[in-house]
């Protein structure tokens, strides 16, 4: 297999839909298990994918989560249409959250999602345009 031939997965996300929240990440996890990726690596992919997925559900209006699984790495790309992030440095700080109270009551809004993505990934990039949306690129190597 050519090293750039990967498995491509793609899921639509809807802001505010907490009922199916996490399903895209769960499906990615199952694919990684089927192809035999190491379980500690799967865990890091699952956690960062879940945090990125939840941020679309919590903070944005709609989006798409893509996973590209290559033999040596998995890439997660999450793009949304939403309010965007005006101050990315502030948003990256552990504990910073703009989540409203009714969402905090569910245990979201700890302000640890972006820091968790950074901690679990080998490469992390975030681009955002206030008033338009946010794009997250994550790379996690399999070894």
């Amino acid at each position, binding site marked *: 297999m050519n090293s750039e031939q990967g498995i491509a997965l793609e899921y639509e996300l809807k802001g505010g839909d907490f009922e199916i929240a996490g399903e895209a990440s769960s499906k990615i996890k199952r694919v990684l298990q089927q192809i035999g990726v190491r379980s500690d690596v799967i865990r890091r992919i*699952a956690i960062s994918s879940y945090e990125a997925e939840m941020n679309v559900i919590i903070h944005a209006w709609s989006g798409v989560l893509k996973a590209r699984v290559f033999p040596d790495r998995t890439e997660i790309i999450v793009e949304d249409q939403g309010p965007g992030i005006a101050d990315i440095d502030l948003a990256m700080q552990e504990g910073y959250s703009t989540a409203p109270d009714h969402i905090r009551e569910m245990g*979201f809004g700890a302000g640890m999602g972006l820091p968790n993505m950074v901690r679990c990934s080998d490469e992390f990039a975030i681009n955002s345009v206030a008033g338009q949306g946010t794009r997250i690129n994550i790379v996690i190597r399999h070894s």
Partner: protein
Amino acid sequence: MTVNDIVKSLPLTVVAGGDGLGAEVTGGYVSDLLSNVMGHAAAGNIWVTMQGHQNIVAVASLAGLAAVIVAGGAVPERETVAKAESEGIVLLTTALPSFAVVGLLYQSGVKGQ
């Protein structure tokens, strides 16, 4: 120590995921903040929380946790129980408050890590 060893010695009720009772417990974590659990619980941990909504199942599954204890008499929602059953997540309940459950877990040899 397995989840089943803990269920037998503590006042816990199995409400879903009974097939997973044989899983090894590597330690414990307590928090009601989901991203805090994602960031700090270790694989194989038993998680104590008062959240009963269905998103706890995805957290437990994606973080590779051994079981979830919904403490303080909180009642897991019907969707939570159904999802835990289909995802194979052991869901336990207890009337004891989180503090008391964690104390008993510690006494029975489950440490934080």
